[in-house]
């Protein structure tokens, strides 16, 4: 019998659970992660199984959560800190960028923490429950950032993040939590290597480089373009944002010669800029057209569905942009 399909959220949950079982030094801390099981129920049942000492309900203190995780990690623990919504990580910005990320470099300290939390829009969360914080932390040597888009990678990356010797920011898109389902192999350990992009769809006319929720929108667009325009679109799911998998990006560019970068985050200062710069530096001669971006508009994310839909990139936007670029 085939294994049942599980959701993105369940896959993440399994990954966390398995690591808690495997390694006593793994523990969880965050707001309402214990008895309540977390705002999105990612840690549902964990307190019961692993005890309150390993699933710690904290005060509303994001800087303390991240700082305490760091201190414990110095001592050999493997803390997983939950932000109730990733938007609140801004309150730990100093701790994460200045203390945690620099610790190995400046002082030889080992700080293997994972900070994770629900991010992203398309869910009518308004400006403070929809953020994509990757750009703010992308500029932080010493930190790794992963952002799975599939259930398999949700599981594989949480496990790899916990085992990584360095601090990892693990971003989980709440629009994917229950929308994405997948069969995962049974009896085999699912581990996704950090630093490797995933070719989500092969193509030869044009590359879409993306991550997170827009992987799915890009795949939808690619299908449509295949059907309606006979365009063969490649979709690269970055999965790890820091460090970027330059090799995978350049491979795709060298094959298709045209690149569309798609992300849900706002345009200015978003990751597409850096990716554009890297392609430009490393594969300029391969470009048959400008590298173009499909991103959110440069505004705080508004609340009303009509506004949110306007601000965020939609499948149709990707289709139109890709068509334009293919015709360039």
């Amino acid at each position, binding site marked *: 019998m085939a294994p049942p399909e599980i959701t993105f959220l369940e896959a993440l949950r399994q990954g966390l659970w398995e690591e808690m079982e495997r390694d006593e030094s793994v523990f969880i801390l965050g*707001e*309402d992660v*214990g*008895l*309540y099981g977390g*705002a999105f129920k990612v840690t549902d049942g964990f307190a019961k199984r692993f005890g309150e000492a390993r699933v710690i*309900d*904290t*005060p*509303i*203190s994001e*800087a303390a959560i991240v700082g305490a995780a760091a201190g414990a990690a110095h001592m050999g623990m493997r803390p997983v800190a939950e932000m*109730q919504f990733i*938007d*609140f990580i*801004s*309150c730990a910005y100093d701790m994460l960028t200045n203390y945690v990320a620099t610790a190995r470099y400046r002082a030889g300290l080992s700080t293997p923490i994972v900070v994770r939390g629900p991010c992203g829009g398309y869910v*009518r*969360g*308004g*400006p*403070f*429950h929809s953020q994509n914080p990757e750009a703010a932390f992308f500029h932080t040597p010493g930190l790794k950032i992963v952002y799975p888009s599939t259930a398999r990678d949700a599981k594989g990356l949480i496990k790899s993040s916990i085992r990584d010797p360095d601090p990892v920011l693990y971003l989980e898109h709440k629009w994917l939590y229950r929308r994405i389902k997948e069969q995962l192999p049974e009896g085999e350990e699912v581990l996704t290597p950090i630093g490797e992009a995933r070719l989500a769809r092969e193509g030869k006319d044009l590359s879409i480089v993306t991550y997170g929720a827009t992987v799915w929108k890009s795949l939808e667009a690619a299908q449509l373009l295949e059907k309606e325009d006979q365009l063969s679109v490649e979709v690269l799911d970055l999965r790890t944002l820091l460090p970027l998998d330059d090799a995978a990006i350049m491979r795709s560019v060298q094959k298709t010669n045209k690149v569309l970068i798609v992300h849900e985050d706002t*345009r200015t200062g978003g990751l597409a800029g850096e990716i554009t710069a890297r392609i430009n530096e490393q594969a300029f001669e391969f470009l048959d057209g400008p590298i*173009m971006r*499909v*991103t959110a*508009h*440069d*505004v*705080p994310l*508004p*609340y*009303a*569905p*009509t*506004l949110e*839909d*306007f*601000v965020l990139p939609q499948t149709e*936007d990707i289709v*139109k*942009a890709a*068509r*334009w670029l293919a015709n360039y």
Partner: protein
Amino acid sequence: MNAVPATRPTPAIGTAPATAAGLSRDQALDIYYYLRLTRTLEERLVALYRQTKVIGGLYRSLGQEGESVATAYALERGRNKDILSPLIRNLGSLLVMGAKPVEILRQYMAKANSPTRGREQNVHFNDLEKGYLGQISHLGDMIPVMAGIALTFKLRREPRVGLVYIGDGGTSTGSFHEGLNFAAVQRLPMIIIGEYNHWAYSTPPEKQFAVKDLAEKAKGYGIPAVTVDGNDVFAVYEATKFAAERARRGKGVHFIEVKTYRRKGHAEHDDQHYVPAGEIDRWAAENDPVDRYVARLQEQGMAAPDDLTDIDDRIRVEVDQATDACVDEPLPEGESALPDVYVDPPAADKLWFRTL
């Protein structure tokens, strides 16, 4: 030792002071109006939520209406008087300060005509002239912001007061600490209402702090504090009145802890499975702020049953009318998302792929 004197005694929950706090009969009925309006409006929101007309979450203040209304009512209201900053459970405060039910409904339904034009949710909106400044979601941040408002009152020598709410959970944030300490050092005309409602989402006070009363936290800031029965409208009103007058006289910050109870979940989706059995029912039966207020009014002969049902009826009509006025209103046009990020440039660029 420099202990901070509690300026008022701590009443046990459920025992109300004997006076009617110097309120006139009209004022007392006015307060009743706001209490009932808060509750009725929230009930309407629940109905709209079930009809999926509310966008996103719905946050109730059931059981806490008393402290919201009483604290706001103790301020000076009108154009350019006192200013408060409500949290999601301070719908009552907002109504007292002059926000209209239809504005609240529009906010929750993200209508084009809502005060924030659909950009922000629920009580996250402002009218600084009327005297309210909406919060952002990040807990604690409004404390320093209100300190800045109170600082302006002080710099301009205006006899105005800033009032800001913080939940038992919110007191754990760094912003709460920094803002309150700054305000205390500057002796700003500011009142903090610490809402001890027994929960921060699912987290009980003993996991949030190691003191018994929130009022104890004030000692670290060198400001006076008082713990009052938050479901006793008169007591909360009196304590706030006292603090406001003190602040107006240049005596600085005052912390008021209101003991109350969040009878609904954190938001509508929360099934409250973490709440000990019977606790909610007990608070509902024995310690509902509206019931207690009504009993007091009647005891003191300040209202006949008819007065109250008249008000109830008026409110029902009002809320019906407000609902009818906006429920079918359109959501904002997508493109209206672009203007007003800055004064200049006046609008964000419309991205290229939208012009193809």
